């Protein structure tokens, strides 16, 4: 792990300025100051996040079920057995893991892509001054204000086979299908899951994009437009590079959150999702809480952690150095 961090060292976005342009007399103070500043975050993270995560990883090596949960500290240490069970594609448990992982990756790409595009388009267009933009800005944030629990119920209503608004429009009004299709079971369930997730996720991209666009000074546009650049070229050549710093972080964080999505499928489908739309977090829930196999749940989570860590490091390496070069 430490080598991974070492490797990542030159690539952190907020790296120090390359030139030694800091006054030397400040060096000593700076040595204490950063630690003081991060201390509150460190304490909070340590107790609420890091230690529980450590316990979650430790659990992965235990045989932890209803017989040992009460006295978990003395549960049998079984090494990598849980990992092997989770990974062995020939078993009932292992066969689910890889399929679910792949499905989750597809889901993440779709949700992330559409959310980003929608959020960026909306933020870009609402950044200009015109009547009604304050109303729209507020309206677009509303899906985000509704508890996800309620949004997911609304989607379950809408896509209900017999009574939902979607089939009413598609079948009764537009006559696109002879029979009312099912949306919440079978392979269509995945489509609904993606749509509902985008609906609850994109306002977030919109919110951050709107904030990011404010860091683009208007005179940059003016300069660009004098050069005769069109709107579209300007967006890609000027706007996007200017908000790149916050976008790379936003995409990374949204990627991680989407990959671990739990609430939307859980409310949409209940504790047991149709196998065609099972994501990794609900699968882990099923292992841990549905079948009381906490060790297995911990093992799958740990593998997920390692996987996402590697992906994140690659991403940071690939995307963030350029950022630093631009600034330096």
């Amino acid at each position: 792990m430490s080598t991974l961090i070492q490797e990542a060292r030159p690539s952190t976005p907020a790296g120090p300025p390359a030139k030694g342009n800091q006054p030397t007399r400040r060096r000593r103070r700076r040595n204490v100051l950063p630690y003081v500043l991060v201390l509150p975050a460190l304490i909070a993270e340590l107790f609420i996040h890091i230690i529980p995560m450590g316990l979650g990883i430790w659990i992965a090596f235990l045989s932890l079920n209803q017989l040992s949960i009460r006295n978990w500290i003395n549960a049998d240490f079984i090494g990598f057995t849980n990992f092997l069970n989770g990974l062995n594609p020939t078993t009932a448990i292992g066969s689910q893991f890889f399929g679910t992982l792949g499905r989750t990756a597809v889901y993440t790409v779709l949700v992330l892509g559409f959310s980003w595009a929608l959020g960026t388009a909306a933020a870009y267009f609402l950044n200009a001054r015109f009547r009604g933009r304050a109303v729209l800005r507020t309206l677009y944030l509303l899906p985000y204000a509704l508890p996800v629990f309620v949004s997911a119920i609304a989607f379950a209503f809408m896509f209900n086979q017999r009574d939902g608004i979607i089939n009413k429009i598609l079948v009764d009004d537009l006559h696109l299908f002879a029979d009312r299709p099912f949306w919440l079971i079978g392979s269509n369930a995945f489509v609904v899951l993606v749509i509902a997730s985008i609906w609850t996720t994109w306002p977030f991209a919109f919110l951050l994009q709107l904030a990011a666009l404010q860091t683009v000074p208007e005179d940059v546009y003016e300069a660009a437009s004098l050069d005769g650049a069109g709107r579209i070229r300007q967006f890609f050549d000027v706007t996007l590079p200017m908000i790149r710093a916050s976008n790379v972080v936003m995409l990374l964080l949204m990627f991680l959150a989407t990959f671990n999505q739990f609430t939307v499928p859980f409310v949409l489908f209940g504790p047991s999702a149709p196998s065609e739309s099972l994501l990794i977090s609900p699968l882990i829930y099923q292992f841990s809480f549905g079948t009381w196999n906490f060790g297995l749940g911990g093992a799958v989570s740990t593998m997920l952690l390692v996987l996402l860590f590697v992906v994140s490091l690659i991403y940071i390496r690939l995307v963030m150095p350029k950022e630093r070069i631009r600034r330096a």
Partner: protein
Amino acid sequence: MRETLSFKAVRAVVLTVITGIVLLPLYVVLVSSFKPLRDVSGPFTWLPETFTIEPYIQMWSTIPLAKYLFNSLIVTTLSTALALVIAVLAAFALARLRWRGQRSFSLLVLSTQMFPGILFLLPLYLIFTQIQRTIGIQLNGNYAGLIITYMTFSVPFATWMLMGFFASIPDELEEAAMIDGTTRLGAFLRVVLPVVRPGIVAVGVFTFLNGWGEVLFASVLTTSDTRTLAVGLQAFSSQVDVRWNEMMAASIVISLPVLIAFLLVQRHLVQGLAAGAVK
């Protein structure tokens, strides 16, 4: 820059489509809240066949909605305020200072976002219990535990996001201020912070809504006295019936404070960097 006619047309089309996508589910929620229960569970109609405001009256007594609303406001407001302070300080240290352990710290914080949230549930309860047993501070079941939890859950995200925002502000800005003899931190707080105000507002909104809609941890870490809204809404589904219409009515009512807050802060979302603040 001048807006051409074609630009305005594209904008109108895109915004209309997005507005439609946003409105449809919201409309379903809204119209369901004005229907009697039997119509909610029946075939969808664009307008209520029987219009009723009964759900808006009944919902207050089906569950202690007012109490839940109060609990949610306390928990989310305090956790948001705390998370912002903590994250701003940490993000400053990460984005602007050079220190040993910097990368390890930022990656450690980021790694918490890679572990499925559900797996934190039992360990967290366990740790709260240990803290209570050893130093006597109760965290299970009261506001404090939930505030700390939500605060912490938002800090990694907020820190990283703010780091991104800070990184897009040139160092020269605060260096100019430091020439006047202000400290690095002072210059940062006085000069950089106002510039990234939209980012801070955005991150604040994120943090607030994180706690506002959270169900899993709230269900385990609260008692009937400290239960929050998102959990409380589930109580419209009882062993006997599911009062969908009241649940929808309640969702609308509880979204009103958020809506008002949005209207108030949205201005700040687009008022950060006045043109020419950065040269």
